[in-house]
């Protein structure tokens, strides 16, 4: 099962698209495939102020992935040790079954190689004790990589701070 979790703290994300380029340069990708993508939603007015949402969309490395069982050659696989879902390029025949199967569009087509590429959490880096390239170089450090069992408390703490004194004081305190 996938041990890892990649958390995006949307409050700190400024939608600068840097993660996409960190990813593409690390994986040496040509025009086209985007192993992760920031999807911008908005702007729209929320409680009187304009807001935009930047949704970070890598591969989720599902515990029970759609893409692995549909792969006829065994190229799409899950690492037994830590559950990272990755493509073994020497086995990929470019049939695109995984692209069809994935509900989130994570597997991408590499026009240069005629094979599928996808986010593998930069597993060579993970194996060296490093973090995925998008996380290491994120401009605002809004991306966090860790084990799903060690849940990040940033958002809970921020929420707690924002409501902590609401009941004690008639006017909002920051």
């Amino acid at each position, binding site marked *: 099962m996938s041990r890892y979790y990649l958390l995006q703290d949307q409050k*700190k994300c*400024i*939608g*600068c*698209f*840097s993660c*996409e*380029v*960190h990813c*593409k*340069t*690390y994986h040496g990708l040509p*025009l086209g495939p985007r192993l992760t993508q920031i999807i911008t939603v*908005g*702007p729209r007015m929320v409680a009187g*102020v*304009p*807001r*935009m949402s930047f949704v970070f969309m890598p591969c989720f490395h599902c515990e029970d992935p759609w893409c692995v069982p549909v792969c006829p050659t065994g190229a799409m696989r899950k690492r037994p040790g830590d559950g990272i879902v990755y493509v073994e390029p020497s086995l990929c025949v470019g049939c695109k079954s995984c692209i069809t199967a994935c509900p989130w569009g994570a597997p991408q087509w590499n026009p240069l190689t005629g094979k599928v590429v996808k986010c593998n959490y930069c597993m060579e880096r993970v194996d060296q004790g490093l973090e995925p*390239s998008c996380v*290491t*170089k*994120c*401009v*605002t*450090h809004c991306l966090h990589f860790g084990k799903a069992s060690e849940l990040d408390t940033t958002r809970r703490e*921020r929420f707690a701070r924002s409501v902590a004194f609401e009941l004690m004081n008639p006017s909002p305190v*920051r």
Partner: protein
Amino acid sequence: MASEVYSMCFMCSVRCPIKVTVENDEVTWIEGNPHVPGIEGALCAKGSAGIALLRDHERPQYPMIRTGPRGEGQWRRATWDEALDYVAGRLGELREKYGPRSILFGERTNLNTHISKTFMKAIGSPNHFTHDALCKGSVNTAFRSLTGYNDAQVGVDYANTRHIVMYGRNLFEALEIKSVNNLLSAMDKGAKLTYIDPRVTVTATKADRYWMIRPGTDLALNYALMHTIIKERLYDAEYVRRWVLGLNELQAFVEPCTPQWAERETGIPASEIIALAREVAEDKPSVVFHYGYRGSHRPNEVYFRRSMIILNALMGSIEAKGGLFIKKGLQAVGRSDLKKYVDQDFEKITEPRFDGSGSDMFPVADASHGNPQMLAHAILNEDPYPIKALIANRFEPIESIPDSSTTRRALDKLDLIVAIDIHFNEFAWYSDVILPESIYLERGDSLQVAAGLKPQIIMRRQAVTPRYDTRPGWLILKQLAERMGAGRYFPYETIEDIWKFQLENTGLNIEDFESKGFVSLSDQPILWERKDGLKFKTASGRVELVSSLFENAGIPSFPPYEPVQAPEEGTFRLHVGRCAVHTHVSTQNNPYLNELVPENDLWINTVAAASLGIKNGQPVEVSSSRASSKVKARVTEFIHPEAVFMLHGFGKTVPAQTRAFGKGAGDALIQENISDRVGGSPALDQTLVKVRPAS
């Protein structure tokens, strides 16, 4: 075998510290310098895309001499000796015949500016200029008029601010990484962000308060804020009494500028203006009215910039924790400054500058940077004298100076155009000779003093050998100077020679930079003592609301406010700006960055678009008195109905840049070349355009 090289990015002018991993003379990884607080590995899209720039075959690969008509793209490859001999020979002839003043040198201010200035002094021309005025000339002048310091000598203490007010200062898309992270961490601790802009930017969507101000009326808003602050005595009385001169004059001037008056001009409710004044005052002096760099570039820009700085002065936030600070350099920590080659003894130059900077055309502008928007006027009219040659280093007059067609027409009149550049940009393509510069990963450069609360010196170190037959700018200039009989002013062979010379009196060595790429000179932030220790550089030693710089030049400090007329229907103010993935005019052809933002579009208000029959995504024609251009419309309620907006730097016409060629519209083509004659900036947001569906 991998090695790590600490260096400094140059994908934009922020110059973030980086760590480059090199294997077999190839760059395999670039990250932000992990040792630098506020960076800690962080790098922007442009920074990572530096790898693609390094490998790009669509950049000049060897010296080239033009063989066909200008701009036609017919070149022959030359050796460095041949190209340098040719340029030096032509410059020598022109200098002989028309005098050294006929030669201009323009650049973006960079680490080697002390060397390019040396080059111009050595050949005897007064005409070195930088890109600066085009971006922030009026910010510079406004600061000098009030504090004696220019804008580059002042910083913002984002990390400790309690409330920051930004006028089109789109910090989260301008992307100075350290500033972004410092502000985000302050906001996480409760700091407030007020953002004012006719257009909703990313920064607007992160703000606690956003005002869609009527274009060009920011000055009226600020006068009303001052009115309220003075009337309700919300200012820092102790600071103002000690450090600010001219409060009475200011009070009399803003007396009629009531919030109700400003509401009619700006569209912002009077009650909200009053609320902001009170709210900011609660957090003084840890507050910032951000003075730069976009927003309201109008012919009266200098007074808008002054108004923001004056608001800081009233809040006591100049030289305050969480406010603005005067940057501290080496002398503040008891060391001597870096040496500069430009401080050598040269023959005195008595000729006036070509651009009237600091004299008749721009009496109080900063002549050490000049006013490049005068380029076409000076060449075409031989005013004040004939100009024959232009050398530009990473400076792109065609796309940076408003009214590209006139700039091209002026270039046609020159006898020699030389581009020292890393791109086939519009100017390089129009030049006679391209002397290709190595990119930042392929060269070392002069050391940078990063003055600030904690001064540092940072080193750009060469990571890999040049991919092509290119050379560093500091070497190209030395080799040109040698051929013009001025080699003695360039007593170096290698970058290490330059570093040793710079460090001579500082007590530091090159080796000190090896472990982290920079040297920190103070553990603690240096802020001057506020009671008696502030060192303003004005004649009076205080913040001069009535500026002696201005008054001595016969320029009023508080001219009457001129109301902004609404454009007639179908006509808009053209606003320009940037996004997070491109740098000015220089990255549109980068493969990775081009993929993210390949072209610009025209933001137009939903209601205005409907009345013109324009639909979202539809091609429209944008026309000014200068030119028309075609671009797709982005119909949105998130821009004021009186303005339209496009990203800067698109509409490339150079076929050698295949990815960017023909994509989007060029703003400089459409803009009129109008200037703030006091501040020195072109009024980049002043041009009126008509928009209609393209046939």
